[in-house]
């Protein structure tokens, strides 16, 4: 679940200095709030389950938050996946989101770098993600971080 950023041409903001750390139970309500604002859908149970499975700095699973001035401004979640689809272990980011009023200050970049550092420490040298192709703004964010098309093609069919 990669959150869509709003379109438009907002002014460039000063870099936000945030501390990126492991998510804790006390962060949950703010994470839910950010996700609700961004997606328009409150999913409290889902986030409680995600915290249970990815929180507290578990091995190969990472749920990080960016904290600035005692407020959670964003979060990123990912994990190391081993030998899926014949691929050597790699880091997958499956959620990244920043409060709309805290965007364009480099928080997404800081969080992505932090989770990449986690993956590197676990011996992984490749980062992957997947998102809708009609989401150009978040695609642009990942592109701006140097990500290129992976040698995989996602497929689907109606059931």
């Amino acid at each position: 679940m990669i959150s869509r950023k709003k379109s438009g041409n907002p002014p460039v903001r000063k870099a936000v200095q945030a501390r990126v750390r492991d998510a804790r139970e006390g962060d949950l309500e703010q994470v839910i709030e950010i996700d609700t604002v961004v997606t328009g859908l409150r999913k409290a149970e889902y986030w409680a389950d995600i915290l249970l499975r990815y929180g507290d700095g578990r091995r190969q699973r990472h749920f990080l938050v960016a904290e600035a001035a005692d407020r959670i401004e964003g979060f990123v979640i990912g994990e190391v996946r081993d030998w899926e689809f014949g691929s050597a272990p790699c880091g997958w980011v499956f959620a990244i989101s920043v409060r709309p009023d805290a965007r364009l200050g480099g928080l997404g970049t800081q969080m992505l770098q932090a989770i990449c550092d986690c993956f590197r420490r676990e011996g992984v040298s490749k980062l992957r993600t997947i998102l809708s192709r009609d989401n150009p703004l978040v695609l642009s964010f990942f592109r701006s971080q140097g990500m290129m098309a992976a040698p995989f093609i996602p497929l689907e069919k109606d059931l």
Partner: protein
Amino acid sequence: MKLQKNTVLALYSVLEFAANPGRQYSAAEVARKYRVSPHHLAKVLRTLGRAGLVGAVRGVGGGYRFAGNARRLTLMDVIELFEEISVPRRAGPRAARRHPGAEQGVAAPFELEDALGVVLKEIDEIAKATFRSITIDTMLKLVERRRGAR
């Protein structure tokens, strides 16, 4: 995937200007660098100028400079000024006829044209999504990385 000459020239020009946003370039200078006629380049720059992506300063010492927002302007924004990367609204014989093979006068049964239309539409959509996701700023970073890799 092949882009038309004017489109490629427009992308090179925008990247050239955006790499040095404070600098003013003469059309002759850019034309020399990319080995195209100044007349040809001028037409491309006029289109970019009308779209507000380059600014022109007339008279002696005049030239062109980047006038866009490199962090917002995507490759698609430039490309669609010069050509359409066709994405038919739906698959089917009408859609398939818009593609080069069909335009060459090859007649095929409905279901073949329909199936080919589906595949070509899929490819077009991926191409468009790719062009929409890459900003001029990201392209400049890619250029730097490729330069460092050589």
